[in-house]
């Protein structure tokens, strides 16, 4: 019984997560913000996802 609740809670949160993730992706980026860039040059974290995206 307890396990069922565990699965339900995890499932609900995961569903919420996926839903928000997809909804967020669908929301258009406001005007003027299409090409926002962080300053990666000063950062030493060379394996960061954002940096990789920028370098592509």
């Amino acid at each position, binding site marked *: 019984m307890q396990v069922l609740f*565990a699965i339900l809670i*995890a499932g609900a*949160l995961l569903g919420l997560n996926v839903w928000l*993730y997809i909804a967020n992706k669908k*929301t258009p980026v406001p005007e003027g913000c299409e090409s926002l860039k962080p300053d990666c040059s000063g950062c030493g974290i060379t394996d960061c996802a*954002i940096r990789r995206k920028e370098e592509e």
Partner: protein
Amino acid sequence: MNLLTLFLSALLINNVILSKFIGMCPFLGVSTKLSSAVGMGLAVIFVVFGASVLSWALYYYALVPLGLEYMKLICFILLIAAFVQFVEMFIKKTSPSLYKSLGIYLPLITTNCAVLYVALDNITQGYTLVETMVNSIAVPAGFMLVLLIFATIRERLATADVPEAWKGNPIAFVVAAIMAIAFSAFAGLV
């Protein structure tokens, strides 16, 4: 516990970066410019506060009554990820100008250890809701404080003559070490 004591000790004495080493990645990443430090700091304060209060409620109103304390890690990290997505979407829709300054830092925050750390810490310390709220503002405020101080130092450091191998992050750690000594002086404050 006295709320002011709690606030000061989380802000200065047990500063997340200098005494707990939490949130080092964004610390190194965005602390090169004052403007990015402000953006990151504000985004972290907002997300930590929201996510911690939500996690607190989830833990005491859902997990504890059901005896599912062992699910807390999964639940908290999912909650944080969902909250970050929600905030990003909300800002996109309502305030383009805010998005312009914070937008780029929001995706980075899910993997910022500080958020998960504060959410978990509130539970392990057994804080009440009010204490949780104070702690969840004080900790990220301490994060932002150090980020700001550090950004100004680093802007000066950019023009300093540093040996080749120490350029970039190694010298930043030396600066952090000196700042840790300075902050350890706060220990007698409370």
